[in-house]
């Protein structure tokens, strides 16, 4: 049996497993990001100090590099798989009807919701992480006033609306991706497959609502 590492890594099975595992790790990142965001409700000091604690830790560069690698790996492999999938059916059907018992809106739009998320991430980083720098001093330490920036950005209705729409796309994306990752890796058992599918929906609703509440809250309270 000849089974070189290259064939294995390029195989349809391992490719999907890597997309799934990177996706699950990104799901983990989303949770930590969301929990950090919730500090906004605590107040400007807690929010800004949390941001400062993250960015002032030298390990942040390692974490960011890891996160970037996850994103690039996830997107690169997904793009490769999508292109291969298009090539696997060069002649389209004249008529194609869904059975209604298999694919869902989420599963059939993964490349599109993924593309929306890519556009969102670029926009988000450009607007917040690499956006305007306001400074504030707590206990003699100068740090970025991200609280102010966040409220300033979300005062704009189109800006807040774009965030909410993107977060809905993200919720749709992860509602399929979360359980799909388990299937790709090979977890399947009558005892827990249903639970994984339900957990995927639960997770999607949690992050979708969680990330949407923020721009809505900022828009409503900031505008008045």
């Amino acid at each position: 049996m000849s089974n070189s590492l290259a064939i294995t890594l390029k195989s349809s099975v391992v490719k999907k497993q890597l997309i799934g595992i990177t996706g699950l790790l990104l799901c983990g990142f989303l949770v930590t990001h969301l929990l950090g965001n919730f500090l906004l409700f605590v107040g400007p000091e807690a929010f800004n100090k949390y941001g400062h604690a993250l960015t002032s830790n030298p390990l942040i560069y390692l974490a960011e590099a890891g996160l970037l690698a996850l994103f690039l790996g996830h997107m690169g492999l997904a793009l490769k798989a999508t292109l291969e999938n298009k090539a696997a059916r060069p002649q389209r059907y004249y008529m194609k009807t869904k059975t209604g018992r298999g694919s869902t809106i989420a599963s059939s739009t993964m490349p599109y919701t993924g593309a929306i998320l890519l556009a969102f991430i670029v926009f988000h980083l450009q607007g917040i992480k690499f956006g305007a720098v306001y400074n504030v001093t707590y206990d003699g330490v100068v740090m970025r006033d991200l609280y102010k920036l966040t409220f300033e950005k979300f005062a704009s209705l189109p800006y807040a609306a774009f965030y909410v729409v993107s977060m809905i796309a993200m919720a749709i994306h992860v509602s399929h991706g979360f359980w799909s990752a388990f299937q790709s890796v090979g977890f399947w058992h009558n005892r827990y497959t249903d639970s994984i599918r339900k957990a995927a929906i639960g997770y999607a609703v949690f992050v979708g609502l969680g990330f949407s509440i923020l721009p809505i809250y900022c828009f409503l309270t900031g505008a008045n």
Partner: protein
Amino acid sequence: MSNNNMNLNLKIWRQPKKSAPGKMVDYKVSDISPDMSFLEMLDVLNIQLVEKGEDPVVFDHDCREGICGMCSLMINGQAHGPEDRTTTCQLHMRKFRDGDTIVVEPWRAKAFPVLKDLMVDRTAFDEIISAGGFISVNTGNAPDANAIPISKENADLSMDAAACIGCGACVASCKNASAMLFVSAKVSQFSLLPQGKVESSERAVNMVNKMDELGFGNCTNEAECEASCPKGISISNIARMNREYTVGSITGK
């Protein structure tokens, strides 16, 4: 002629040969009994065409009992037509109404080239089987059937997987033209039994690598294959194959 007989409009893919371009062509058939199977309806059309001196529509078929896996056809955009767990030959015209327009196309996948009209070349499936869809045993007298204990649960799961007739509806219905359901059924039917367990990892690796090489798409876990499968093969088999592929890739010879 009973009053229930139907007149139908057909839109059928006509393609003279593998390398030639094809197109959808409109036909009319009349006085179709609701008790006819879909293939019998096509037989009626072909008799009409032959009588007019035209080229009959070529389609694959053999047993017409739903067990051989030869019949195919995308009917109104669904593999084997609208009825759940039914092959085209077992689909009856009573599922349609008088005056309906029915769209009939071949399976479409790079790995299943159209030979003529509605007939596709499914040799790719045979190549995947040759790559590992077997068990290696010495020939000789048949051993006692009960010599090796097999759990009832595994025997059932193996039989469920073995129900696959290799028709290719999974590939046809998959938006990625992936053959994962077929390959996973062929992997599972052996790996669940002691006789097949011995080679299960190598089998999964060899069959999946062959599948990839033949140009089938990647699985995106949408389960349209399971929904379209005339034998109701479960995508749990795909999870099993993924598992065995990974293990086989790490521990394989």
